[in-house]
């Protein structure tokens, strides 16, 4: 019995995980609301381990790293996220990182996560980390895809398509909830198609 691994990602309706320099949408595309923030806080307060790729942890540290991040007042959601035990899979990052409880593991993400799923006593949650999660999905290591769809289309300014380069998957919709009357969270169990 291995532990559950969730690929957790925020997206626009048109499937972008981020936006380029021309887009000044702001955090959560300017669409966060009380239900969404409560939901995220509840998620991050569950016992779990974060698993992040190098780009995502770099981005997190730039904004909410306790010593070096540009955000001085960190909100409860990001604070709870930051306090989670974190495994960073990277061949380039050098520790120590400006992150309270981070372990950098060198090696192939597939090997690292396969081992974590055997050994971790708590569920695993990855946020963003698109290229790592693409590889993990192709290796059948992702048990849940949790997509939060924000109510925008960013055809002009969108960047980083969430599922770019993915294989084909059948999905089983396990949970669906609307937050603040505008943001849709969908949790699927993926199975490779064919």
């Amino acid at each position, binding site marked *: 019995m291995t532990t559950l691994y969730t690929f957790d990602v925020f997206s626009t309706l048109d499937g972008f995980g981020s936006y380029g320099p021309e887009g000044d949408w702001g955090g959560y595309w300017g669409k966060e609301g009380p239900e969404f923030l409560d939901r995220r806080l509840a998620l991050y307060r569950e016992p779990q381990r974060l698993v992040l790729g190098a780009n995502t942890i770099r981005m997190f540290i730039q904004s909410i790293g306790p010593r070096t991040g540009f955000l001085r007042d960190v909100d409860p959601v990001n604070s709870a996220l930051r306090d989670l035990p974190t495994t960073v899979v990277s061949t380039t990052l050098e520790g120590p990182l400006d992150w309270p409880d981070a372990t950098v593991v060198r090696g192939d993400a597939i090997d690292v996560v396969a081992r974590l799923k055997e050994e971790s006593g708590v569920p695993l949650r990855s946020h963003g980390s698109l290229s790592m999660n693409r590889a993990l999905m192709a290796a059948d290591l992702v048990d849940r895809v949790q997509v939060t769809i924000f109510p925008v289309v960013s055809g002009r300014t969108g960047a980083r398509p969430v599922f770019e*380069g993915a294989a084909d998957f059948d999905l089983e919709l396990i949970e669906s909830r609307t937050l603040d009357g505008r*943001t849709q969270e969908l949790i*699927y169990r993926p199975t490779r198609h064919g």
Partner: protein
Amino acid sequence: MQELTVDFITSLDGYGAAEGWPGWWGLQSPEYLAWLAEHPLRESTVLMGATTYRQMSGFVEQIGSELDPDGDEAASFRELANASKVVFSSTLGEPLALPNTRLVRSDPVAAVRDMKRDVSTPMRTLGSLTLCRSLLAAGLVDRFRVVVFPVITGRTGTDRIYDGYPDVALEMVASRSFDGGLQLLEYVPTVLSGPPAQQQNA
């Protein structure tokens, strides 16, 4: 003014179809089909571009040969044949094979702007990615409705819905799950012409 609804079915990764997969990705469920029946095409004027028109015309001809006449797909194409339709095309010629279809050769944006004032029923689109993009960009779309089917088709997906879209703010007006894991999301779209943050808050 009549309302215009843009209607898409889509994979989670934004494709309208995929090579090697059946219609509806083989995932049409009883609740979804019942919902379609509650919103029959014949209550609207159906708008199409030439590519979708040609596809649909081909499907209607296949009823009874390649398509099981008692199947759900054949039923949906019969419904389409009976509905009042407009096809926008500079290449199609009359007579049109599909019944109840009017051919419009002029610019669809101008034509739909007039139709919103003149037609007696609401309008909705069928497929027609290019037409929908033009109508949306022109600010003519009142409702943007997608049903997300539970598949990712990164390898085989075709007809990517959102290619060439502008930035758009969406106000959600409906959200509902159907059995089989289909998810309806319906929005009122507002096209953003400038920097998103300032526009959204305006």
